[in-house]
């Protein structure tokens, strides 16, 4: 029988350490909505989403009330729209109408975000893929909760450098198109290498073609819980440190597993995966950087940061895998700058640079995330940043991504405010040296050799 100390521990995690379930994401396949007529296609997409996701938000609220655990977001991911719209869309503007439909449908059911305005172009781009990518700036400017992602590389295919070049330009244009709104469009746009099909986290969620008609994926959170647990083992050796992280990750993930099973049962939709990522928020005490500091760094970005993050990421996985039979998505520690108060502080103190963040992405999930850069950063330099991250992902057989915001009119040292979960970000320095000639080459970087690992 459960005892009072265990009950108190759980409730303290929720109340004092910000334990929550970050998202229940309902993946919906739109493949059978495909139509050559654009109006019909839009109608089918709207109907499919509003039917399948009708009870999503209500069910999440019920689970939240029954278990006393906050479920922060209810989101939807759909089949990459470049595939769904290929038969009907002949111009970028045609794709924009689908973005508007997604926005309308997701708002109708009360979802906080909808992801899947995406193209998978790791080897080559179809005409539709390219049209979709070219439509991204307008699509993100005229919608509020649509998220977009483009997969430009993978370990098996190499990196599509034409797409990398196009994405550098697209990010600049998206910033311009949403400049009245802190260039927020770029916060809803991710460029991936090795994008997973079942990621529940935004902005990179889409419902992969390997998935069933509908599926429930759950993203847990809890950096605050790990931090609070580590406070109790200050000064002890790595074995104790690792054991503490592992046990805490187990507990966090079990709550996610419970919520996922319940959501699946109540909605009558199969359970897909739990994503183990430690996802920070700008709230005090909900920070991955603070965990790194608790491990023993003066600030995130200090020498030792990469090792501390590698350890953290690995232990979270080891604890989490034991807690759930199906783990997937990104599953690692997120290190977004604007969404993590400790990261923001580290940048403002001069302890953390883009180069150090890049090193950190070699050992944790995702990549250069929510980083504000000067508005006049050349598109080719953004492409260079994307290529670097994609190369890390490609060679290390892991997911990496870039979500940078070239904030129009801002320079290094300025701050940009996004609000809500997206937080605020200090504008960071990008190397002023050019990679223009490399990006202009065009073509592909071949897939890496899968032997002779060193």
């Amino acid at each position, binding site marked *: 029988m459960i005892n009072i100390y265990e009950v108190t521990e759980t*409730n303290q995690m929720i109340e004092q350490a910000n334990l929550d379930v970050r998202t229940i994401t309902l993946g919906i396949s739109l493949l059978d909505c495909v139509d050559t007529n654009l109006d019909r296609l839009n109608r089918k997409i709207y109907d499919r989403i509003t039917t399948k996701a009708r009870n999503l938000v209500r069910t999440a609220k019920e689970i939240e009330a029954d278990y006393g655990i906050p479920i922060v977001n209810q989101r939807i991911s759909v089949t990459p729209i470049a595939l769904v719209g290929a038969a009907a869309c002949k111009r970028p503007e045609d794709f924009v109408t689908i973005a508007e439909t997604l926005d309308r449908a997701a708002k109708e059911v009360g979802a906080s975000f909808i992801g899947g305005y995406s193209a998978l172009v790791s080897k080559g781009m179809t005409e539709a893929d390219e049209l979709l990518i070219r439509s991204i700036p307008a699509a993100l400017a005229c919608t509020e909760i649509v998220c977009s992602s483009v997969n430009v590389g993978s370990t098996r295919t190499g990196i599509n450098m034409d797409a990398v070049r196009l994405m550098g330009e697209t990010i600049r244009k998206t910033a311009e198109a949403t400049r009245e709104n802190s260039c927020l469009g770029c916060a809803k746009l991710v460029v991936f290498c090795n994008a997973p099909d079942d990621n529940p986290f935004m902005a990179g969620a889409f419902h992969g073609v390997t998935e069933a008609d509908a599926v429930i994926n759950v993203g847990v959170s809890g950096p605050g819980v790990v931090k609070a647990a580590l406070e109790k083992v200050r000064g002890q050796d790595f074995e104790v440190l690792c054991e503490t992280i592992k046990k805490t990750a187990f507990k966090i993930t079990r*709550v996610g597993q419970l919520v996922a099973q319940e959501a699946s049962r109540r909605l009558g939709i199969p359970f897909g995966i739990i994503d183990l990522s430690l996802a920070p928020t700008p709230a005090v005490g909900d920070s991955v950087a603070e965990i790194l500091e608790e491990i023993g760094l003066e600030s995130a970005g200090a020498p030792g940061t990469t090792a501390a993050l590698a350890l953290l990421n690995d232990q979270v996985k080891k604890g989490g895998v034991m807690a759930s039979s199906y783990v997937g998505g990104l599953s690692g520690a997120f290190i977004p700058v604007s969404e993590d108060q400790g990261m923001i502080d580290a940048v403002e103190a001069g302890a953390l640079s883009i180069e150090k963040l890049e090193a950190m992405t070699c050992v944790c999930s995702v990549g250069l995330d929510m980083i504000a850069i000067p508005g006049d950063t050349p598109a080719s330099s953004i492409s260079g940043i994307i290529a670097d991250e994609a190369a890390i992902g490609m060679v290390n057989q892991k997911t990496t991504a870039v979500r940078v915001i070239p904030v129009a009119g801002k320079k290094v040292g300025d701050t940009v405010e996004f609000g809500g979960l997206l937080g605020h970000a200090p504008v960071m320095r990008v190397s002023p040296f050019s990679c223009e000639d490399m990006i202009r080459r065009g073509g592909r970087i071949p897939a890496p050799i899968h032997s002779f690992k060193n």
Partner: protein
Amino acid sequence: MKKTIITVTGKDTVGIIAKVCTYLADNNVNIEDISQTILQGYFHMMMITDTSRSDKSTGELAAELDMLGKSIGVMIHCQHEDIFDMMHRI
């Protein structure tokens, strides 16, 4: 039958248990076990209850108990036992 765990946390004052128990009796909730302790200077009480004969859902009970708690200056949570079982038992 699945149990519902009710926890009360706050500064100890006269009548906390009486008020909570009266509410539970009025709503046909049976208390099967009560334990209490002082942790970090705060009063903690946990009740294991059976809500199967109550007309109200766990969510409704939780919302009303939350209001009751606010009126007497303590925090009251009402949660399905599964969340604790999942977290603390393999």
